[in-house]
């Protein structure tokens, strides 16, 4: 190691270059900036956060709750007493919407998060072991995809699952059933992504160094599919909310006295003409919820996708401004 430091001028020059604070930008900053650049996504995030807040604190602004019947106001349109009117049983719609929104968001978040987690573990394991294990796990996955989810939900929440129903509230039961049927697509995606990551040079380098495969999966594979996971969580949340609404709408999801947006919408369809507010209010909330998530999704893709072209527009005269 005699004249080894001779190369250093290059490094010094490069260092000076990189030392300019604005060259090195933390990844989180870039992600945040890219997300903020997508105005639609920011609006979506605001709406979603607003709805979440509303579902937790909304109840304090009204003296009514989802069970109290107001015998003087049955099937009344919105008024001073009841912000959003009452149902034909005389229950305050505002209170019910707050409750329903909370249940829907909860179902969405839990199902979205847990299913992606299950998918990541399952997918990575498949890709890591490969061979026979991969084949068997893939068969299980395909079998679940082919199972008619609708029928299983119907059986579990109505006739067949009596024992379960006694111990669990219907929303929890629905979460479990939704979870069972929601992770397969993502798992397959993650499997193929990790398989292609296994072919990357840095994984090969680790293999040639003799790093055991388990460490390679944990240290190289899982972190590198992280951005995909984030995207899949929001997609999973939207999917779960929509599934809940759909199942409850046709009467096999959440059961009264539990309330969700789907229950409210489903119950009001027959009375759109007579009690329009009963139908339109929960529908609007549901639309805001799923719509805001869909708006966010595009921005998240922009932010996390490394190949994204989101850099904004070259501003006129910005170069001149800088030189002055």
């Amino acid at each position, binding site marked *: 190691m005699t004249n080894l430091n001779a190369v250093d001028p290059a490094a010094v020059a490069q260092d000076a270059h990189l030392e300019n604070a604005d060259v090195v930008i933390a990844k989180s900053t870039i992600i945040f900036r890219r997300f903020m650049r997508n105005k639609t996504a920011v609006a979506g995030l605001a709406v979603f956060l607003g709805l979440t807040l509303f579902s937790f604190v909304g109840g304090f602004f009204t003296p009514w709750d989802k069970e109290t019947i107001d015998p003087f106001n049955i099937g009344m349109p919105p008024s001073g007493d009841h912000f959003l009117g009452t149902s034909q049983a005389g229950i305050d719609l505002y209170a019910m919407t707050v409750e329903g929104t909370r249940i829907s968001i909860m179902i969405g978040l839990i199902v979205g998060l847990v299913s992606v987690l299950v998918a990541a573990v399952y997918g990575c394991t498949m890709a890591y072991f490969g061979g026979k294990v991969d084949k068997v796990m893939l068969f299980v996955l395909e079998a679940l995809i082919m199972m008619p989810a609708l029928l299983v939900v119907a059986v579990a929440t109505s006739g067949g699952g009596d024992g379960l129903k006694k111990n669990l509230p219907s929303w929890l039961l629905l979460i479990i059933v939704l979870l069972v049927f929601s992770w397969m697509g993502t798992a397959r995606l993650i499997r193929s992504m990790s398989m292609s990551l296994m072919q990357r*040079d840095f994984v090969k380098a680790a293999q040639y160094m003799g790093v055991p495969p388990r460490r390679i999966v944990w240290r190289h594979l899982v972190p590198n599919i992280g951005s995909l996971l984030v995207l899949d969580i929001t997609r999973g949340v939207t999917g779960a909310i929509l599934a809940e609404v759909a199942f409850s709408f046709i009467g096999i999801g959440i059961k009264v006295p539990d309330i969700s947006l789907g229950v409210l919408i489903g119950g009001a369809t027959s009375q759109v003409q007579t009690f329009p507010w009963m139908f339109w209010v929960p529908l609007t909330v549901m639309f805001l919820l799923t719509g805001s998530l869909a708006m966010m999704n595009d921005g998240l893709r922009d932010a996390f996708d490394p190949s994204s072209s989101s850099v904004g527009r070259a501003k006129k005269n910005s170069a001149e401004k800088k030189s002055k």
Partner: protein
Amino acid sequence: MSTFLEPADPAPTAAERLHIAGLHSPSDAVLSVRDLNVSFNSENGAVHAVRGVNFDLMPGKTLGIVGESGSGKSVTSLAIMGLLPATAEISGSVRLKGKELLGLSDKAMCAYRGNDIAMVFQDPLSSLTPVYTVGTQITEALTIHNPGMSKAAKETRAVELLAMVGIPSPRNRLRAFPHEFSGGMRQRVMIAIAIANNPRVLIADEPTTALDVTIQAQVLEVLHTAQEETGAAVVMITHDLGVVAGIADDIMVMYAGKPVETGSVDDIYYDPRMPYTMGLLGAVPRVDVAEKSSLVPIDGIPPNLLHTPTGCSFAPRCPLVTDACLDGEPALSPVPGTGYHQAACIKSGSLGGDVDVHEIFSAPPVPVSRFDLIPRGDRSTVLELKDVRKHFPLTKGALLKRRIGTVKAVDGLSFDIREGECFSIVGESGSGKTTTLLEIMEFHKDQDGEVIIGGISNKQAADAKTKSAMRREMQMVFQDPTGALDPRFTVYEVLAEPLQNAGLSKRAIKKRIMELMNLVGLQPDHVNRFPNQFSGGQRQRVGIARALAVNPKLVVLDEPVSALDVSVQAGVINLLDKLRAELGLSYLMVAHDLSVVRHISNRVAVMYLGKIVEIGEVDRVFDNPRHPYTRALLSAIPVPDPQFERTRERIILQGDLPSPLDAPKGCNFATRCPVFAALPAAKQEHCLTLEPPLEAVQPSAAVEILEAGPAPTPDQRFACFFPDGELDEHMLVVHETAEPHAP
């Protein structure tokens, strides 16, 4: 609505101003670019990618634009074509035959694109649509600009075009899909499409970078013919100074978005006046020079174009920098005493042709290894391959797989690598170089053949302990420095991984990492950075440091510099050279760039279709190639010397590597061999039926007389029956006859 006057567009006015200022284009230029500026937005602010490019292109002439990546070459060409995204801001003037192109709508540009001005892109594999036949894609180009042309006429023209670019049996090939063509053939098709409408200007953006040397020579030849046939002016964008030396008339060297030196090709190569140009020329290893000297590395990286440079943009990297250089950016001004050779350097007058570039850039001295003095036979063997084979079955059928043939990716390979030496394998893609590396790296005991690493054979590698002992003896450096580093690891984690695996303690790891950073010339405090915060050359240094972490004896280099710029490449090659000398390392290198191979290796093996056709000491093989394939490979390498390029005799091999199914029974190379083509039928029969063995070169009679007695057999073996046979003259190309006073 339309009664309002449109707000005056800045582009035409700027152009008008220039015209008034007397900078207007000569009337005979087909393409004249004036004060072209392009800026993009980035996370860090606006990047001024192109800053004031001016040039005039005369009909039938070729302009070469050279520079490092990020110097604005491609952006310039895309701006001319109107293909930049709408988010870019472009100003200046681009005139095609006097008509302004900048500011035209995309629709209006379509009338010019593909008709008057056409482009050939870098990657032939992705520039053709896979779902249409080649014929459809050529006729599409014709249909768009000639709506009245009859179907038969279009087909005739398409056949004519394919024939012009040298595709055999063009009429049948019209109905072929792109995947049925090889890379070189696809690039020919791209050229055919580009010249379909007899464009006045043809822009070729790195047209041969993705191709093999032999194919590169073919494609350059096709470009040359295309230019002659259509009389088009060509803008050739490349980072390879060798490629443009032979075909360009004028050269424009770009740096940091600005042309820094322009002139005729001879001016630039023989009398460069800008230190950057000198550095670039000195950084290129030469395939035709045996004398060993270090390459000229240009330290540092191109400036950040976020800020307008206050001084000369090259000043931070320039070895001749003085205070005067930092005072304002020098404009392109004529070099005193020359015609239209211009350079943007305040010292261009004093930097004549007699300045030694090695001295200016203080190139390091040639490192000497302690093994260099020991005869090769006395050094211990680091790696030995004995008759290694890798055959892949070729099957057909979806349900019942029938074996229809065998791909002999590696077919009976034997060689050894001694301590302290660099052994290189060269050949076209598909010749089995990479498979050979994989066979060595992924050794296991059921392999066909024997791989002996550090004295341990793969046949003994049954248990994990032996395997890891063998692994520690050899490490690998990958081709793509970006892909080889986990983007989510800091440099510290990258370097710590092999050390942790070797079971070192935390303290020892930290100490070793600091040592490694020093060794490869990186700042020790860079360990907390992520790979994406480094330049390509630095990333490759990190990759080298990782390979050296566990003190291996042998480092396997898979195209270690092909992804790097020339100036950076020189630095990495010098580093590899130095490490070999100081640490006594051995290298096994795979490369397609024969100039790099010549510079760095001691011994070389030329592979063709899984077999070694010639092997030996690098200077012997390169100066006195015996096998026709080696000769063809060497003649295809472009040399950065315009005089030499124009007058040298080239062997242009016909076609591509044959498919393994049609490989002949005898000599593999017979289908493309220039000697074979000129042989009489009886001898051809010999080549086709018998496989030539790898035999040592016999010292010639003259040498024996000189040595007074039987000379030792030189270290060179080759596999050919008729090495001294005449070459087929159809495969020889010379552009100009040698002038009597030529060097």
